[in-house]
């Protein structure tokens, strides 16, 4: 379970985007995780084959807990299995402790080291077929497991399931029932035993339809529950916390029982409430730890707005620009030039970032806000930035952000002016060291060369960390944003 933000302590796996046997590259999305703030897709930190899941859908675990085991790819030297999430295994996760990692030399005593027993191609085959090589007695040289052994084991109808007594009935990892992630989730929610279902999918896999068909008609009434959960994750105060091993029967039965009371409005309300708490905790920390100083300047947007209006006239609606895109790009370029605004303050020291990952504060419709990153915003063209901005805001509102987007911002921009305020003094997101605010773009009287005219203008503000910079540097940064906006064609 990776950290998806400075304030995150635990997360709940709500969906697997891969299945055991899948080959994943570093960076491939593997799971959707519900935090107090939003649902985010998280990526694999390693390349390899997904061997098994170590937590079930709906489990809430601490940051640092392994959630899946990814084994080395055939191309790599055989090595002990790696865990996604890497950090120290949590003692609360009993399955993790069974992994034969070097840190737990005795843990795998029941089975010889995988690496010594089966070659990487054979392990890959085993994972593809959903077979645990640790449970096969090998017929190859030195007791090694061969392809034939794996194929034989896969064909056998009832492989011994060593952990059966401790697992919930639908634990796919232990029983190797082939099934889709959606089918597994449905099964848990409807209290259906996957093992009892004859799969009709590829290779006999249990599909969503199979699970639904297995539910007695009278119990099918709360059928809207899974759809609701898929659309918007349930409130965090509902189930989870306790490992499933401690409640082998209750867990699957709970969901249908709760269904009639749970309405979408309640779920959204719970989300808004926990989001409000998360935002409050983070902002309290910011105000306690960060000595903010504040600056403001009025940006002359005459050139930028004239350029944008002319550019938009030539464009179809779908590729029109908004002023925010120009403001964000100018901010990113200025941050590249004035590095004291861009980076993280951690462990008592400032680490400037060589990349500018611009956080964009997005107000969520049911309250609260998130500030996901536009990666390498300084290197994007205005059109690319505009496309990514629309995509990012859309996904933020839909609750589908990726881990890196939440964890990476090196500097955040808030653009409340879009909704009418003239200026906004933001609170810095730890561990960042600055926050830029843009107010409403207004036509204002403007004196220039002894003449009074009317120009588009907006108030830009800077909240910055006095441990890292002072007003002189902050002022330079704001002035640089204004300068860059005078040549919009170069943005």
């Amino acid at each position: 379970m990776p950290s998806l933000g400075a304030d995150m302590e635990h997360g709940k796996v709500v969906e697997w985007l891969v299945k055991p046997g899948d080959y994943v590259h570093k960076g491939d999305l593997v799971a959707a995780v519900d935090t107090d703030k939003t649902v985010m897709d998280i990526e694999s930190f390693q390349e390899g084959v997904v061997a098994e899941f170590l937590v079930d859908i709906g489990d809430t675990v601490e940051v640092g807990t392994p959630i899946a085991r990814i084994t080395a790819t055939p191309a790599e030297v055989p090595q002990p299995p790696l865990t996604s999430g890497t950090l120290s295994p949590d003692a609360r996760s009993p399955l993790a402790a069974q992994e034969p990692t070097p840190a737990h030399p005795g843990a795998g005593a029941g089975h010889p080291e995988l690496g010594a027993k089966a070659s990487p191609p054979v392990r890959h085959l085993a994972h593809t077929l959903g077979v645990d090589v640790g449970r096969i007695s090998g017929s190859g040289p030195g007791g090694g497991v061969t392809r034939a052994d794996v194929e034989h084991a896969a064909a056998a109808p009832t492989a011994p399931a060593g952990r059966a007594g401790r697992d919930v009935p639908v634990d796919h990892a232990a029983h190797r029932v082939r099934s889709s992630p959606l089918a597994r989730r449905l099964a848990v929610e409807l209290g259906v035993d996957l093992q009892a279902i004859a799969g009709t999918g590829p290779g006999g896999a249990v599909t969503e339809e199979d699970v639904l068909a297995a539910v007695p008609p009278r119990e099918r009434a709360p059928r809207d529950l899974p759809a609701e959960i898929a659309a918007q994750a349930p409130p965090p105060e509902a189930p989870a916390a306790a490992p499933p091993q401690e409640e082998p029967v209750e867990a699957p039965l709970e969901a249908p029982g709760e269904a009639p009371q749970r309405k979408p409005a309640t779920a959204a309300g719970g989300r808004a409430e926990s989001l409000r708490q998360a935002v409050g905790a983070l902002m309290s920390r910011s105000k306690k730890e960060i000595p903010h100083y504040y600056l403001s300047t009025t940006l002359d947007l005459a050139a930028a707005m004239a350029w944008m209006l002319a550019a938009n006239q030539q464009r179809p609606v779908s590729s029109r620009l908004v002023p925010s895109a120009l403001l964000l790009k100018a901010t990113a370029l200025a941050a590249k030039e004035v590095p004291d605004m861009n980076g993280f303050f951690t462990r008592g020291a400032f680490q400037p970032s060589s990349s500018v990952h611009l956080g964009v504060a997005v107000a969520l419709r049911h309250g609260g806000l998130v500030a996901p990153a536009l990666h390498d915003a300084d290197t994007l063209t205005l059109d690319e930035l505009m496309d990514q901005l629309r995509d990012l805001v859309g996904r933020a509102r839909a609750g589908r952000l990726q881990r890196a987007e939440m964890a990476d911002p090196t500097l955040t921009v808030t653009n409340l002016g879009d909704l009418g305020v003239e200026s906004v003094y933001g609170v810095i997101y730890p561990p960042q060291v600055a926050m830029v605010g843009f107010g409403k773009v207004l036509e204002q009287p403007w004196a220039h060369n002894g003449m009074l005219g009317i120009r588009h203008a907006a108030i830009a503000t800077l909240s910055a960390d006095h441990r890292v910079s002072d007003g002189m540097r902050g002022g330079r940064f704001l002035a640089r944003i204004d300068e860059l906006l005078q040549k919009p064609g170069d943005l």
Partner: protein
Amino acid sequence: MNEQDAHQAVAAALGKVAPDVEPGDLDGGARLRQDLELDSLDFLRLVEVIAESTGVDIPEADYPAVATVDGLITYVAGHG
């Protein structure tokens, strides 16, 4: 396009862009930015959805005319 069709098209487009806005709250005088809290990206998406569904392309210069729900309906009815 008559007002009735325009009203439907606008209500459908708003439903896509701002699904949290209850159809019952769609007061004709509601301002899209201030009352319905559409930001500039939402507004752009709204203009895009309207163009897709009705063929009415609202140029940027006409944005002030479509700042309210009624304004938008009248505009779509008059140009579709």
